[in-house]
């Protein structure tokens, strides 16, 4: 329970400091650059700008239903399987089985880095190995089981499935190497 509180406090702290400030700066930067480019285009060529807006609206509406479904699924998954639950589950295991379990949990779950890194740090403190943490984080960021249908739709089955399967394998390799290199 104390660990939970600590995790939450850390999460809140980081949320209002580092990543959030940088992310929001980057987000605003992206908005300024993208809409600035659109404004430049509009000043030069009104018809082309109108066409660009039309394509933008269409692509937004085109991806909206599947994005909404993914957002709902992530919200449900994270609401029922809380990070604390994962932490208590992964923190118990030792050895290679723990690493394999972490790889799979990381592949299936969708946890934003804001929560994932404090979670990984608390796992490390509670006795998980470096390899387990590395496997968990690498699959978490690179493999997306929840978003796989969307990836297939945009990139084709070969590329999407290939990327996820190879990412899973390479995460495991990265974990082994990191477990050997870092002590």
């Amino acid at each position: 329970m104390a660990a939970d509180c600590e995790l939450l406090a850390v999460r809140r702290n980081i949320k209002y400091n580092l990543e959030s400030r940088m992310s929001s700066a980057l987000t605003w930067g992206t908005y300024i650059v993208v809409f600035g480019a659109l404004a430049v285009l509009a000043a030069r060529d009104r018809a082309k700008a109108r066409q660009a807006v039309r394509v933008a609206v269409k692509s937004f509406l085109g991806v909206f239903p599947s994005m909404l479904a993914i957002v709902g699924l992530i919200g449900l998954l994270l609401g029922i399987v809380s990070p604390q639950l994962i932490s208590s589950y992964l923190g118990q295991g030792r050895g290679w089985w723990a690493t394999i379990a972490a790889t799979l949990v990381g592949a299936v779950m969708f946890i934003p880095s804001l929560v994932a890194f404090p979670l990984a740090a608390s796992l490390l403190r509670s006795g998980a190995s470096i390899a387990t943490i590395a496997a968990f984080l690498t699959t978490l960021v690179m493999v997306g089981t929840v978003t796989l249908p969307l990836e297939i739709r945009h990139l084709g089955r070969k590329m999407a499935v290939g990327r996820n399967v190879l990412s899973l394998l390479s995460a495991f390799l990265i974990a082994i190497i990191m477990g050997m290199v870092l002590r």
Partner: protein
Amino acid sequence: MKPNMARRTPMADAPQGTSKTPRQWLADYRWVLLIATADLLAWLLVPAQTPLVLHNTWDYFVEMVVVLIPVAVLMGLFDVWVPKQLIGKYLGRESGWKGLALSLLFGTAPTGPLYAAFPIAGMLLQRGASPLNVVVFLNTWAAIKIPQLLVETSFLGPSFMLARLTLTVPSAILMGWLIQKGIDRTGGLDVVPVEPEHAT
């Protein structure tokens, strides 16, 4: 029940000019309806977790909208401004090291979840970027972002961050190369054109 309401409002604000039948709406939103049903089930089975589910769904919904707006505008700009040959020239199969470096740069520059990168990657792929470069772009977007690296350093230490970074970059390139070989060997790409109904 707020997020469920938020889910329904987009249907009410149907875009003007598009004539979708209710059946098409149902087909488009069938997964959303399925998940809304699952949410209801969760509410019945584990009522204690429901506020968290709704809170999470709302948070991710806001994040999605914030991230997807510039992505959509970017797609529009690409469509009218960037000629097809240009993408082929800088990110195509003949682009070599420069294309690879450009993909790495494109991947680290933005912020946002990986799913926001799929439409962009798909568009690049359809316009002649090589599978190698697209995979490198996606994997760097996923694993190497500057704010993320800073958070990683602060929680797990610089050596952990650097070790993971130096292992991730070559693995992304190797992965892209393998996927490109695999795609070539099995008869090319199998991308379904996005939103075929809009191709008017």
